């Protein structure tokens, strides 16, 4: 009798566990291959400013994207370490032969962080919002190909079909970052046309849910955003332990990098990213005594360049700029400027050798697409002089360069005043150009004013600036490279390609977009890089390394060269117990 009662008690005690096991068995969970970790602990990460919104449909700032990626999940994800796509909410997918139709099988039995179930209706709802012109989502551009929208259909509660208007080589990668949002929480806002105002920093945490590894716990405006572990997350480690390991993930606002370094040294934050080489060197010297570890992930996807104003709308409005554009439009002038610049000095003095000199916009960090046969121009003043001479320039007795009309070659180089490294690059370029008789004046300017001049007024001669490719794939660069691109910075608003080489760039980029074979795409993109290195619409200078640091006992810390460099795998991060315990 006693034994029977004990058995009954045991069975009663095991029942919830068994029920839990059954629930897990019903869920299509993703098993990760990373090092199994230990549950518990908190992690603090510093960000430059607070996110503007927690709404993934309208978020564009990096701080919001970083936090939203922890709160939400996508169908297919780019693994930041391998730079390849991998299954996420979509368990598997098939592609039609012509590369236009993608059929995605969704994971079953998953729940949003508020416990509500997830299915194909949430996918349909999310893409309906992204594609809605009235919502003004920045993701819409990714889903519009040749002016036509992508079609999304539900085949069954766990199967979704995407039909692209034309073959789309980067289709798999497009799904990365497109968060699948809870229809049950956002449908009302969307139908009332208020989706843009939904999920602000003032929204109560329980009204925000997602399929990400964490859920919102608290927002202290201007100070911190606190996330807590999502108990319904759909990844498990190799031991069957449900991720994430951390109980809490906090993003604090620390506006400057110098202040971030000090907070990191003080232990207020445990991860630091996007470090300048100088600050990296300072921290590197202390890493052993301060128990953190610094990582150099190699050249990232940022490229810094000197760009001349090649816009065609300056003739009447800005005669002084138009006069100088006669020099800038001559490829020999641009090539001479490129040959006069000492990229090795930029890498050494500005980035303390923690950067790569560039020939094109593709950095050597982008291993899949980098064209290694395009050489980085070495500084050669005789070559620069030859080119200038061939372009009709000559020198006065005091080494001042003059054009064919006798005008001295003099122009301004704009640079954003908040970026120390770019300011230093501009000063070095100014000094380099002096050697060939060019008088360049560096004008530091508040970054928004400088950007306004580049994008809207076109009132500038040259600018030192930088861009960061969003992905290793060539497709995000379409906007910069094709003549009709919204960020075709050197010549905006071209109705037709202004030059034969721009027409060729357009063709090559369109072709690679439709080519479904990697090698074919690579060949096309190699040619793009050759053209850019020859024609130099931007004089590519350097790509800084991704320099980061973390407390030494943070497990599974694998910095990557794609955003978010340090906490892209936040669900896998865990704290090793202190030594001796």
């Amino acid at each position: 009798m006693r034994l029977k009662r004990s058995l009954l008690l045991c069975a009663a005690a095991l029942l919830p566990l068994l029920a839990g096991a059954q629930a897990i068995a019903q869920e299509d969970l993703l098993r990760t291959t990373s090092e199994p970790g230990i549950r518990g602990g908190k992690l603090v990460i510093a960000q430059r400013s607070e996110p503007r919104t927690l709404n993934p449909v309208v978020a564009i700032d990096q701080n919001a994207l970083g936090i939203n990626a922890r709160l939400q999940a996508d169908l297919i994800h780019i693994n930041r370490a391998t730079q390849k796509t991998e299954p996420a909410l979509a368990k598997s997918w098939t592609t039609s032969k012509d590369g236009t139709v993608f059929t995605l099988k969704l994971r079953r039995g998953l729940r949003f962080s508020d416990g509500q179930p997830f299915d194909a209706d949430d996918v349909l709802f999310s893409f309906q919002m992204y594609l809605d012109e009235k919502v003004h989502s920045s993701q819409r551009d990714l889903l519009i190909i040749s002016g036509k929208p992508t079609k999304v259909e539900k085949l069954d509660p766990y199967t979704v079909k995407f039909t692209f208007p034309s073959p789309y080589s980067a289709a798999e990668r497009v799904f990365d970052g497109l968060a699948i949002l809870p229809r049950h929480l956002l449908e009302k806002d969307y139908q009332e046309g208020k989706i843009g105002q939904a999920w602000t920093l003032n929204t109560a945490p329980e009204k925000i849910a997602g399929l990400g590894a964490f859920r919102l716990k608290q927002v202290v405006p201007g100070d911190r955003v606190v996330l807590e572990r999502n108990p319904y997350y759909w990844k498990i480690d190799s031991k069957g332990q449900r991720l994430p390991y951390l109980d809490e993930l906090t993003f604090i606002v620390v506006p400057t990098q110098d202040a971030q370094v000090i907070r990191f040294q003080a232990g207020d934050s445990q991860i630091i990213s996007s470090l300048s080489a100088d600050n990296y060197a300072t921290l590197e010297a202390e890493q052993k005594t301060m128990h953190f570890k610094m990582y150099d992930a190699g050249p990232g996807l940022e490229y810094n360049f000197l760009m001349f104003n090649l816009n065609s709308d300056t003739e009447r409005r800005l005669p002084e700029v138009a006069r100088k554009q006669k020099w800038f439009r001559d490829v020999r002038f641009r090539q001479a400027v490129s040959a006069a610049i000492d990229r090795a000095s930029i890498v050494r003095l500005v980035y303390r050798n923690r950067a790569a000199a560039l020939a094109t916009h593709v950095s050597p960090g982008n291993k899949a697409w980098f064209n290694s046969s395009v050489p980085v121009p070495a500084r050669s003043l005789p070559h620069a002089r030859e080119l200038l001479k061939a372009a009709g320039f000559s020198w006065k007795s005091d080494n001042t360069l003059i054009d064919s009309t006798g005008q001295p070659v003099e122009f301004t180089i704009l640079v954003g005043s908040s970026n120390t490294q770019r300011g230093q690059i501009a000063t070095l370029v100014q000094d380099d150009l002096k050697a060939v008789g060019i008088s360049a004046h560096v004008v530091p300017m508040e970054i928004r004013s400088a950007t306004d001049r580049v994008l809207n007024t076109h009132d500038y001669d040259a600018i030192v600036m930088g861009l960061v490719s969003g992905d290793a794939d060539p497709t995000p660069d379409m906007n910069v490279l094709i003549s009709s691109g919204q960020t075709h910075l050197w010549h905006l608003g071209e109705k037709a390609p202004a030059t034969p080489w721009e027409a060729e760039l357009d063709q090559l980029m369109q072709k690679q977009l439709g080519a479904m074979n990697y090698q074919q795409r690579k060949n096309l993109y190699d040619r793009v890089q050759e053209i850019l290195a020859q024609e130099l619409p931007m004089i590519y200078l350097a790509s800084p390394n991704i320099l980061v640091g973390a407390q030494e006992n943070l497990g599974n810390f694998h910095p990557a060269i794609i955003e978010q460099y340090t906490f892209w795998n936040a669900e896998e991060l865990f704290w090793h117990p202190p030594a001796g315990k």
Partner: protein
Amino acid sequence: MNRQSSFNRSYPSLRSGFHTKFRRTWAIWFLLIIHAVVVLAGFVAPYSFETQERGHPYAPPTRLHFVDCTGSFHFRPFVYVTKSAENALNDYQPDCSQRAGIEFFSQGDSYTILGMFSSTRHLFGVQAPANLFLMGTDGFGRDQFSRLLYGGQVSLFAGFVAAAFSAITGLLLGGIAGMYGGRLDDAAMRFAEVFITIPWFYLLIAVRAFLPLQISPVVAFLLVVSVIGIVGWSRPARLVRGVILSARERNFVLAAKGFGASNAYLLRRHLIPLTFSVLLTQMAVLIPQFILAEVILSFLGLGIGEPFPSWGNMLAQAQQYHVLVSYWWMLLPGLAPVPVFLAYHSLAETLQERIKSNI
């Protein structure tokens, strides 16, 4: 009674008279020397302000030696050629096999003094490949000492010219307001108050935004000077007005007026000379303030642009955390104004004492 009090007063004044004279003398001499050195920066500095020794970024101050690596003593100071290791950018090691003695009147970068005299001779220097960086180098390998001297041309003279501008404007407007009184006085003083309340920092940003992108360093200098000067005239104007208001009631002025002297004559002959001592004192106080204003403006990137140095834009580099903790010599431009300010303040104090004793 009178004799007693004059004795009491004369004893301390005898003692302080010596101090005052000494203080005034050293202050004047010091300021003269500093300004002369700064004017002659091209000659005194071993390098040009823009020469980049790219192999020596953030090099510490060069050590002067009298004893070489073998222990031998040399009467002529010398330096060793330094090189940084391939992988450690700022770890400069002396090469004992290559030393260079300090040379006077050595050949170097060309320069022009006051836009008139060009030369390549420098007061001192060393032969390449050795370098003489008395205050180390910045991130581009530019000699901080040379840049400090050239930077003084901007910082010291911006303060001086702006203070002179303020004093002259203050004298004119304050003199007229004090002399004529009434509505003219009211208008001038309200005008002065408006200037006191202007947020000059935003004014400068606005002025800079209206100017073309490419402005020469001279224009940038004049811009800084004029903004500082225009905003700063109101205080001396109020002071001058006060002096004239009280002086115009004094007997000798009233007597002159009784003899038919015109207002213009009274101002020129009797009243304005009375304000000179007040104005000089005011200038001695304003100059350091205005030097500091230039330093702040350049620190914020609104003054003189690269590669031209000023004490402000040199100091701006030190606001970066890694510079603060790693390269102490980058903070020296912050110390440079201190003795200059002390000298000006000392001068102001002696001038003030002199005014008191005259009264």
